[in-house]
């Protein structure tokens, strides 16, 4: 697999450090307000995230869209916490929590876009992850596309056999049928995924690969 940058470990290492820095910046939960440098850190993280996405060839609206779809998840954690903040600071705390969360996830998005799966795999190895873990990580990325495609195809086939009803009924409306259908579909996906992986492993060993 080709990586999209010459030094994936450096980009990944710096990116992860920046994500942690953005995530740890004070957000005013202690009632002392949001320090100015926190806003600077979050803005810098956001700008770097957009530049990483642009370097990977993404247009700005597409890069922004990749961040915005995560906003509801960040909001789900943010709003209840802001509600519990000291009175008079709730608005500022909410803004700080949203900015902190979005800065960190946007930087993660930018990193993933810039490095791609091959860059991430190389970066993880070069940063010193245990070899077994890195091997399983790489194998997961290799299998992911085919497994996801197979899952989508199976869901479409199920929907085609149930015109007007979708792949599943509600569990509340039809618990036994829904759970049984889910169990069979996912079990079939498991068997196909593992059997394909076993066939690939046998072929690799037949070509002289190490056990």
């Amino acid at each position: 697999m080709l990586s999209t940058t010459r030094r994936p470990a450096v980009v990944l290492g710096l990116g992860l450090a920046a994500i942690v820095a953005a995530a740890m910046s004070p957000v005013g939960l202690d009632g002392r307000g949001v320090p100015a440098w926190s806003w600077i850190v979050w803005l810098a993280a956001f700008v770097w995230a957009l530049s990483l996405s642009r370097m990977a060839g993404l247009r700005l609206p597409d890069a922004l869209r990749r961040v915005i779809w995560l906003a509801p998840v960040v909001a789900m954690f943010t709003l209840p916490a802001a509600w519990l903040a000291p009175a008079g600071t709730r608005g500022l705390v909410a803004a700080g929590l949203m900015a902190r969360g979005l800065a960190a996830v946007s930087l993660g998005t930018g990193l993933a876009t810039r490095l791609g799966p091959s860059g991430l795999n190389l970066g993880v190895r070069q940063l010193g992850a245990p070899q077994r873990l890195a091997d399983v990580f790489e194998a997961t990325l290799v299998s992911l596309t085919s497994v996801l495609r197979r899952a989508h195809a199976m869901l479409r086939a199920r929907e085609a056999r149930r015109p007007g009803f979708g792949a599943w009924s509600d569990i509340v409306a039809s618990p036994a049928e829904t759970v049984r259908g889910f169990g069979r579909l996912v079990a079939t996906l498991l068997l196909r995924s593992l059997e394909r992986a076993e066939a690939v492993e046998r072929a690799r060993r037949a070509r002289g690969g190490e056990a």
Partner: protein
Amino acid sequence: MHIPDGFLSAGVAGVTWVVAGAGVASALRAERSDPQPMPAGILGAAAAFVFAAQMINVPVAPGTSGHLVGAALAAVLLGPWRGLIVMTVVLAVQALLFQDGGISAFGANVVDMGVGGVLAGYAGAAIVTRVMPTPRGAVIGGVLGAFAATLVAATLTGLWLGLSGLYPLRGILPIMLVTHTAIGLLEAALTGAILATVVRWRPDLVRGVSSQGRIANPAAVMVGVIAMALVVAGFLSPFASSLPDGLEHAAEQLGFAGRARAMPGAPFPDYVMPFIESAGLATALAGILGTLAAAAVGWLVSRSLGASGRAVHD
């Protein structure tokens, strides 16, 4: 249940990263010594499957859907250590590629759904299959293990958010437990449905639990059971009834309740940690330390009985 970046304090994030690292390191070491090695490609396919299974949403009611987490399923199919490795890789892929779960919160997510979820799920499944070493036992064990795994993971998630100062512990824990009881039932049902099909078509794929009625990974069961016990002792005990039990009520009625004396030097009199102002926290800590002390004494006793038993037969 994936905690995003920006919601854990530095201390909580650091501690959970250390605990997660220790758990994954133990899993890698234990997996290396397994007599039946499994190629990385197979584990990678299993991880990709868990990822895909998590993306298949099941409608629960109009406007609401749920999905499988798969920690207990991974434990039953692969065993506790490979299950933990698979869940760690799944969480890493989700965090790095899809920002589902944060980087600073990665340690906490691994502890919740990896260490806690997988080992609690395995403990439940292994104990049931010890009693019912049949395919049906594996399915029932998986169902119970999945329910336990969900509650352990939810409790740990609430604990990290509470300790980070985001929400009060007394508020977040009951909410997490109540909501995740329903989610745990869904996880249990979906896990059981998958296992029921797998044991019918390919029973050889269920490699995590023994079909001969023995527990292959007692250390993993021990950690899983302790995790479940800590959830009950530490996080349900502060909500226990304060009404007197039968003996206390009889003592009050008959007038000899005042003659009760605490043992001199008792470390946690009346199940309360001394010097801690918060009553809930004092009870929770006493419960946690008491559970760990009971587990340690039980382990020491079983070790000495095992040694003396071997000496008799030597």
